[in-house]
């Protein structure tokens, strides 16, 4: 395996030459990104929420597992900012903890799913033949298996185990469409001169993939990973609604939303506050993703 910094460097060199300008590609992308107000707003909100998720729990005296038995179902007040639930647990502490977990799920899951998509897609596209066929069958099979079924049926096996298994499961059903695109891109890149040159020089295949193929679709992979963050956070909400996600005593925004969906009318703060936080988070990530797409994709200069 090569270090990740190397391929990125190569990509930058190549693109600056193509751009024929004195500014580096990185700076060009940054400039384009910061020109878009909504994307900057999104980035600002994401940073704010990440900050809040880690600093927030220290701002309140309550921990997310603590019971305040004298204040059950209390409305948002000065001592419980987001109110309390049926057991007297502080909803602010729980929401912050859930936010932390949801951010982790989104980030880790996105890295896994885009990583798997990149590697498997490139292998299928570069080697062709049996490897290609195997990956294509795997993609087709995972696309027709309902992910909900697999995760729901297998989730009892992971009770008491780390929540990271759950993230891996979520990511396992997220990579297929990206892998298809990577496979197609690889097939066309494989015909290009610089790949042939490397091959004739005797560079081993896995180095060609890591240094020449994947860096050339870096923009696509970055955009895909960003979009995956928000879709994984949303997928977690869906599963948690049925009780197959993060398990108590731990919480995620999804498990809070799922747990209190039926209390939305009677104890509105229990449902609507975590929901609002989640929507703001996903929206901000989506705005960043959209801004990145415009900044990284050269075709976006139509405007």
């Amino acid at each position, binding site marked *: 395996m090569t270090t990740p910094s190397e391929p990125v460097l190569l990509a930058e060199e190549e693109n600056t030459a193509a751009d024929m300008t004195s500014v580096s590609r990185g700076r060009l992308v940054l400039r384009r990104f910061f020109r878009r107000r*909504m994307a900057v707003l999104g980035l600002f909100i994401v940073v704010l929420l990440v900050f809040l998720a880690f600093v927030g729990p220290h701002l309140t005296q309550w921990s997310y597992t603590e019971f305040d038995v004298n204040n059950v179902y209390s409305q948002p007040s000065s001592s419980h900012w987001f109110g309390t639930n049926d057991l007297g647990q502080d909803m602010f502490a729980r929401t912050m903890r859930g936010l932390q977990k949801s951010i982790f799920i989104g980030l880790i899951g996105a890295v896994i799913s885009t990583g798997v998509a990149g590697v498997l897609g490139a292998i299928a596209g570069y080697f062709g033949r049996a490897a290609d066929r195997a990956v294509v*069958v795997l993609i*087709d*099979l995972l*696309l*027709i*298996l*309902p992910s*909900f*079924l*697999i995760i*729901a*049926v*297998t989730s*009892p*096996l992971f009770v008491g185990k780390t929540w990271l298994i759950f993230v891996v499961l979520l990511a396992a059903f997220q990579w297929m469409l990206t892998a298809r695109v990577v496979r197609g891109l690889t097939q066309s890149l494989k015909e290009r001169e610089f790949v042939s040159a490397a091959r004739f020089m005797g560079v081993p295949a896995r180095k060609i993939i890591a240094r020449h193929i994947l860096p050339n679709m870096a923009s696509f992979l970055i955009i895909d990973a960003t979009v995956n963050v*928000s879709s994984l956070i*949303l997928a977690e*909400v*869906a599963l948690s*609604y*049925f009780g197959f996600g993060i398990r108590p005593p731990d919480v995620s925004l*999804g498990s809070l*939303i*799922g747990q209190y*969906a039926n209390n*939305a*009318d009677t104890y509105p703060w229990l*449902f609507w506050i975590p*929901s609002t936080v*989640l*929507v703001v988070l*996903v*929206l901000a990530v*989506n*705005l960043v993703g*959209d801004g990145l797409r415009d900044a990284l994709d050269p075709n976006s200069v*139509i*405007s």
Partner: protein
Amino acid sequence: MVRFLIRRIVYLVILVAVATTLAYLLAGTQLNPRLRFEGRNPPPSEASITATLDELNMNPDTPVLQRYAKWVNGVFHGDLGETILGQSVNQQISTRIWVSLRLVLIGSIIGAIVGCAIGAYGAVKQYRLSDHVATILSFVVLSIPTVVLCKLVQLLGTSINSATGETANGSQIFYTVGEYSPGQGSWTSFSDVVDRLQHGVLPTLVLVIAAAAFYSRYQRSSMLDVLGQDFLRTAQAKGLTRTRALIKHGLRTALIPLTTFFSYNLALLFIGSTFVEIIFSWHGMGEYLVTSITTQDINSTAATTLFVAVLVLLAGFLSDIAYAALDPRVRVS
């Protein structure tokens, strides 16, 4: 060409078989139907539970492959087995399909039309206020989990109800639960149809909002691509007004990629409306998919997987056909 098609179909059938087998083996070994009966009050005797499970072909003591062979044999004879309550799975699916179809078809057609209209209009008025508002709104909607969207629409419905004043006998404009009021399930009388409408508006609205947000994004970018093309200028040079050129030549071309999306999503929405069905208590296919697992129902789980697998493949076919039918360039090559 024929050989290619046959090979393709054989491949797809094998995929469906593998997926269904995996689902059956997974469900057959991981689900525990016994739990379902032990929880009853008064609890039935051990022997009677075993007898019932044997009857249903769900006894965990029978080797899973033997149970699977029996189930597959039934499937080849057109029988998907029995649910955990002893009902016929075929019966369940055939009634539930129509429930989902009513909900999904209306919701996604209206949603697609609204979404395409918004997207096309936004592209024509790019960077105007209306475009910005539509873009931001669709971004917000796409960031809302379906659960929350359903609850929002329910809230809207109940607040309209209370604003218009619910009368003492409980009559209201919108219902948030069920497909029809108890005892009013028919299609024959006028009042029953109205009752169904009162129940149907809110869940359909959820689907419309979600679909419109989705399609408006794609339609906008597809339309933007078309707007820069030469044939639009040619059409105007021929003497068409801008609006006519945009609608007759621009919109039509921009709709082609959307149609593949639409036909693909339409088939998938059978199961995609799971949340809407569960939150609004409609007994459709999406709900079945989830309840079959939560009720430890092995046969139903495998049957719904088979249904979904066939659906996904049909959706792929449907979108290919739609694409070929609409785009002459595909047909010629």
